[in-house]
């Protein structure tokens, strides 16, 4: 998977993914997002427009980054259940993570985000520009 970073400002960045996000590369996505947070980015848009596939490992990566951008430590990346439980807890409590935004998911990925409840606690936008506008 290829990633492209667009630093919109000191505190805002867009991380675009091109390819497939699975168990072989999801940790690299977490690492990249954490590095950006370490550099001062506080609003991160994940541009999914060229992402062709996302496995459950990708969901763990998204949730991990949601926690990072909320100022918390990410969960153990191997703990799929733990991450999902946290997703459910966030969704059930109405918590939304506005600092991490998803843009332009495909129909398949959008359906997965819906079924797993990710879109109940993370804002999902139709495109990059609307995600940046918030």
């Amino acid at each position, binding site marked *: 998977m290829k990633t492209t970073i667009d630093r919109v400002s000191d505190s805002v960045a867009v991380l675009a993914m091109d390819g497939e996000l699975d168990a072989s590369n999801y940790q690299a996505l977490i690492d990249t997002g954490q590095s950006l947070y370490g550099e001062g980015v506080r609003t991160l848009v994940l541009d999914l427009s060229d992402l062709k596939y996302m496995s*459950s490992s990708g969901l763990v990566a998204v949730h991990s980054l949601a926690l990072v951008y909320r100022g918390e430590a990410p969960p153990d990346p191997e703990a799929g259940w733990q991450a999902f439980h946290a997703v459910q807890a966030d969704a059930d409590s109405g918590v939304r993570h506005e600092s991490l935004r998803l843009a332009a998911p495909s129909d*398949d990925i959008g359906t997965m985000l819906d*079924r797993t409840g990710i879109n109940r606690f993370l804002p999902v936008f139709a495109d990059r520009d609307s995600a940046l506008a918030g």
Partner: protein
Amino acid sequence: MTATDLHVEASLDELADIRAHIRSAAETFGVDPAAVGGLVQAVDEWVTNVIVHGYQGAAGQVHIHVQRDGNDIVVRIRDSAPVFDPATAPAFDPDLPLERRPLGGLGIALIRELCTVFDHRALPDGGNEVTLRRPAAAAGRKGVAT
């Protein structure tokens, strides 16, 4: 052609090729394009579990058999990792203590949603065989993912 077979090393680096194989087989067997995504995801999730939680970094093989069976597409996946029956993995339970989490994880729950059949048997000489079945047509499939 009535079936396809793929043998790969148990490596996460093989996942992309496995998905490509499933897509190609699905096309060959006339699976509705809208139903292919769920099939690919189910296979990917199971093989990932085999590699990460079954072999746990040890060398091994994964054998994937794909065939059309009437109105369904059927995938059988064999490995020689320690026996793990996914039926023992509990349904989503937000109260489950982490120390009681089963081998496997979120992927298994997704497979249950995506497949009409998700069967496991322990192979006589060790290892596992799972059978994943989905309708070849998008309409009437279980779950909402395509």
